[in-house]
């Protein structure tokens, strides 16, 4: 059986202006990403800002075409799928529920909008379906004629979820869906996403910088660094035995509410490198505590074994 989502050597570059009289430079936002996501899986994507998580999400949604490589959904290249058909199968939930909802439309019309676009049923049917979906995500029908301005952040994110699910997609791409929310609301939204996944047999691609949240919701995790996936493993395995030094540092930086542990020192040094001039060899080597001479020269290839994928010169471990 083919995987639900498969990306092959996916690459996206942007041409950026670095100064008025300087030639434009090429920024590799996503640089050769191979991923497979099985049906009903939740793929968590983590990494620091600027690592290409959001560009990857936009490509999956068909909002940004890849410069090279392709994305297959159910074995079908998405560049060959009709835009509406693609939207029916894959839907987004964005980070900021304050800017992702049109402030001048009512909640019911926002949720029914995907149905309008696809021309499903009559307008009464569409409205009823929207209200049904609102009820499912925990928003009472009395909000249907309100505008987003009258709702709280958590309620708005529920509207965004209802809008994504109203046309029964197979895949939902969540780009930092809880980052703008308070912790108590974050817990509500995570619980809701987990329930909905079971109920509608959804597959999630879940982007977050919060590793604790990813551990909670994802079944497998891809760790990205400067446009590349450096480690891809089942969640439990990754949190128990992180292999890539960058994954180890990221895990160490999670501040769990356990007093007395102090603040970890990951030894990452100061800066995330300039994505315009990525370091040679393994892009992580200037910040790596376990670097070897070959790390600054050769780019490590993704090693695939029983434990998962990892791109690091430390693996396979030499005896």
């Amino acid at each position, binding site marked *: 059986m083919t995987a639900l989502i498969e990306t092959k050597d996916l690459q996206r570059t942007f041409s950026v202006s670095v100064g008025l009289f300087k030639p434009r430079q090429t920024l590799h936002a996503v640089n050769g990403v191979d991923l497979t996501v099985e049906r009903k899986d939740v793929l968590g994507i983590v990494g*620091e*800002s600027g690592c290409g998580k959001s560009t990857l999400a936009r490509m999956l949604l068909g909002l940004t075409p890849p410069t090279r490589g392709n994305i297959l959904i159910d074995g079908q290249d998405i560049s060959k799928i009709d835009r509406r058909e693609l939207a029916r199968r894959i839907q987004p939930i964005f980070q900021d529920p304050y800017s992702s909802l049109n402030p001048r439309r009512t909640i019911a019309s926002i949720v029914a909008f995907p149905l309008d676009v696809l021309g499903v049923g009559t307008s009464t049917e569409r409205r009823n379906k929207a209200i049904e979906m609102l009820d499912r995500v925990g928003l009472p029908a009395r909000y249907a004629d309100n505008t987003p301005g009258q709702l*709280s*952040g*958590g309620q708005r994110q529920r509207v965004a979820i209802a809008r994504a699910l109203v046309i029964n997609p197979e895949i939902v791409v969540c780009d930092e869906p809880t980052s703008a929310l*308070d*912790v*108590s609301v*974050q*817990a*509500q939204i*995570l*619980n809701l996403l*987990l329930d909905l996944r079971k109920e509608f047999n959804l597959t999630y691609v879940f982007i977050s*910088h*919060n*590793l*604790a*949240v990813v*551990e*909670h*919701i994802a079944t497998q995790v891809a760790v990205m660094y400067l446009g590349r996936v450096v480690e891809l493993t089942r*969640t*439990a395995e990754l*949190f128990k035995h992180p292999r890539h030094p960058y994954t180890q*540092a*990221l*895990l*160490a*930086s*999670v*501040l*769990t*509410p*356990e*007093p*007395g*542990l*102090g*603040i*970890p*020192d*990951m030894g*990452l040094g*100061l*800066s*995330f490198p300039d994505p315009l001039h990525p370091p040679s060899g393994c892009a992580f080597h200037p910040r790596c505590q376990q670097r070897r001479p070959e790390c600054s020269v050769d780019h490590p290839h993704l090693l695939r074994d029983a434990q998962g994928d990892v791109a690091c010169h430390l693996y396979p471990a030499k005896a």
Partner: protein
Amino acid sequence: MVTDEIVLDVQGLTVDISTPRGTLHVVRDISLQVKRGETLCIVGESGCGKSITSLSMMGLLPKTARRTSRVFEFLGEDLARASKQRINDLRGNRMAMIFQEPMTALNPAYTIGDQLTEHYRHHRKASAQEARLRAVELLEKVGIASAAERLGQYPHQLSGGLRQRVMIAMALMCGPELLIADEPSTALDVTIQAQILRLLADLQDELGIAMVLITHDLGVVARIADRVAVMYAGQIVEEGAAADIFASPQHPYTRGLISCIPIPGKTMPGGKLGTIPGVVPSLIGEMRGCSFKDRCSLAQERCSDTIPMYKNIQGQQWRCVINQSNQSGAGQ
């Protein structure tokens, strides 16, 4: 190292803001003390009044806000009655603040060097040369490489983490005794966040500053705080030593907050997280009883009356009608 000298003593602080719809009671009768070398974390969700509390301590409230207090002392000096001139002498000098958004808190039109040295020259009557040396010293202390060259750079030329380091260096220029940090690491990546917090903790330890850290992140609180004050709807609902608050939270809101957070290795992946139903109440108009009663699973009739403040022998205090601990609680 925590000493017994009280740097900031606030009792009965209340902040009201008049709005067209009525008076907004943003901060309602809160009391705080911070000792030298101590870190007090004020934690709460958005809209609970934690930022207004920090601004009121610095005397930076908007014009429409009215601040009242029973005691408002900085190192024994009454700030509520101090002249504007006196406040200006203290602010930026002996009490300093780090703001949340380094991009908006730094002026994009001036170099880092200008912004670092301005208040030092004003307060310390230092020459430009002395101020420059001090700026380089502090930039190095906060871990910025090639500090001297950085002085000529503008904020947009620095990354978010570096800007926040500049903000910290700026706050430390005059060697303050009280540092108020409002969400200093929220806008940053997790890796940078850990570095910034570590830096703050180290500097505080080294310089013996009293620090008030405002945050919504209980993970940050657990790792850096000596004492914790949990705010809800403008009130402190629970206060105590960090270890006690996390080991035995007494107020239902504190318990709810702690149960909301997924913890790798502790919470079941894919399991149900604790939630707090409902929304924060409106802070406009008269308020009676417990402000958390509409969201509380343990609410009872007594919650609409005056809520006692219980205290146990470890000094943990909570504002709730329920006193489950066996220690004799003294109602206030």
